[in-house]
């Protein structure tokens, strides 16, 4: 019943993710409007846009966590239900209660619950896999810590390790760099690049415009509608940013062109 995800061939002729006409509404208000997006296999795509632009909702709609009003989602050419085992997910860190009585290792093992199937408990094999993933994100020493005792960056790494044990071909990550220190940010980006070099496709919600060209090769600019998407060099333009965020963004980017301050203000709040 459980297929090892990595043994499945990656269909190079099918894009990792193809979204057509995706619309999501809460009551009367559209949160996402008519989104078309194609993510080619093997790309690292960032999703940027102001608060309330629907970035999280987009990922949740693709994963079937919120019901879309309309639209079609294909993952490697097939509906999500058939491709679940090839998809990994890193939710927003703030979406769970970190006071929950569990350890870092235990959280990572949750990534294996889907493959384990009903009634089977994680055992020695799962512990080994989870520890390897914790090691990969540099968190092995904290395996037995209660998760509240970890810093924000460490919690984020635990979430990342949980996604790593899923051994997916396509990853969705919701702000994996939110509230992490510079060292963790570097470490996480290295892991994302490593995953890409293994042939994985990654779709990452990101909040810091300054680092988009450095970190990602594709980008989608989102503000309820898809403003633009494609290779960063082609679509990450002042014009598109202005249309996504409103007027103030040109200033932000010009500043980055001169010198790239580490603590430059995020354009996340520059709602039009």
């Amino acid at each position, binding site marked *: 019943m459980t297929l090892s995800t990595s043994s499945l061939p990656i269909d190079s002729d099918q894009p990792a993710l193809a979204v057509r006409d995706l619309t999501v509404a809460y009551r009367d208000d559209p949160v996402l409007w008519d989104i078309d997006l194609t993510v080619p296999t093997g790309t690292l795509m960032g999703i940027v846009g102001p608060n309330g632009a629907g970035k999280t909702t987009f990922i*949740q709609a693709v*994963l*079937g*966590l919120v019901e879309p009003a309309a639209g079609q989602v294909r993952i490697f050419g097939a509906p999500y*239900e058939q491709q*679940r085992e090839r*998809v990994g*997910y890193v*939710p927003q860190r703030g*979406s*769970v*209660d970190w006071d*929950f*009585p*569990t*350890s870092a290792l*235990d*959280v990572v093992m*949750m990534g294996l*619950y*889907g493959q*384990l199937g*009903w*009634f089977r*408990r*994680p055992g020695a094999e799962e512990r080994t896999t989870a520890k390897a993933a914790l090691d990969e994100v540099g968190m092995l020493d904290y395996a037995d810590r*209660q998760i509240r005792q970890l810093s924000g960056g460490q919690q984020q790494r635990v979430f990342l390790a*949980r996604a790593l044990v899923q051994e997916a071909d396509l990853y969705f990550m919701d702000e994996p760099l939110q509230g992490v220190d510079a060292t963790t940010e570097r470490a996480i980006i290295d892991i994302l690049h490593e995953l890409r070099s293994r042939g994985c496709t990654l779709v990452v919600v990101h909040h810091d415009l300054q680092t988009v060209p450095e970190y990602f090769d594709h980008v989608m600019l989102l503000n309820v509608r898809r403003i633009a998407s494609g290779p960063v060099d082609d679509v990450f333009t002042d014009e598109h940013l202005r249309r996504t965020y409103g007027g103030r963004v040109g200033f932000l980017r010009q500043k980055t062109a001169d010198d790239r301050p580490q603590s430059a203000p995020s354009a996340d709040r520059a709602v039009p």
Partner: protein
Amino acid sequence: MDLIYELITNYTLRTVALGAATLGVVGGGLGTYAVLRGQSLLGDAISHAALPGIALAFLLTGSKAPLVLMLGAAGAGTLAALIILGVTDATRVKYDSALALMLSVFFGIGLVLLTYIQHHAGASQAGLDAFLFGQAAALVETDVLTMAGLGGAALLVMLAFWKEFKLLAFDPDFGASLGLPMRTLDVVLTTLLVVAIVIGLQTVGVVLMSAVIIAPAAAARQWTDRLGAMVGLAAAFGAASGVSGAVLSASVANLPTGPTIVLCMGAIVGLSLLGAPNRGLLWQWWRDRRNARRLRHETVLLDLYALAAKHGEIDHAHAESVLDAMNAGSDRTHNALRQLAEDGLVTQTSNTHWRLTEAGAAHAKALAEERNLQPAS
């Protein structure tokens, strides 16, 4: 000793104690999930909402068999839970408002039905109002067996879906992304909670039942950072409260069993909030105090270091009064100096004068660097 003898030989006491222990184990174990998921009040709403179910079950069947009444209670409790979820989803009424609303409306219907039964159905049925505050003394062996059967089954289901329920409580979205039917699991877990509640209603009553769900779990959370241990501890606390409540109310005249059980749980919660390591208030208070004292000692040491630096020689002795002036309160300075001397960081050169030792100077230097202090020049 007499009590233990009584517990073994006295049929009534033994039955009540076993019943109370059963509801404690089941309520504590399953209550853990309610507490972790922030659903403590849902338990309260379900137990209050069970009252009209009990009354209706009696009106429809004329029977007071425990299983019949429990079915009625479970039906009404579940209905209330579903309405709460439905109202929250479909309207702009917030979750807590929906909870409070359903709790009072269902409880009100229950009271109306009880009054009706008392006036119309004759004296033999008046026993139903025992469900308000519980009537443990009326428990008989078949009641306890019913409780144990239902409760045991509920606990077995909990164990069977252990990892799924853990995911449901910790990160339901991630569980859904794995393809697990989180909504169904939610319904199953809520049903188990309903079972845990209805088996305790006869003993503890609808008004106090939520304490059995919440208190043991809240106490258990204080002592452990593992879900398995928390469930086990909560069950143990529930059982211990149940037995001690039963025994206490049997040995003191006019002490009602249900409320006594709840009070025992309250005592365990109180002790846990105060005394548990790490999360306990006493522990935190002691840790804060220790940190404050360490900071005071370090301050005195750094003062001495600053003075010594000013004089250009590290082992220059200084009067305690000077250090006093740099700090507040001479008792504290003196105590700090004595503690520092005990640690080998300073020595007393005369009645009133102190100087840094070599180790003290090194320690002060490290501290100063750590805190980014410029040595006085």
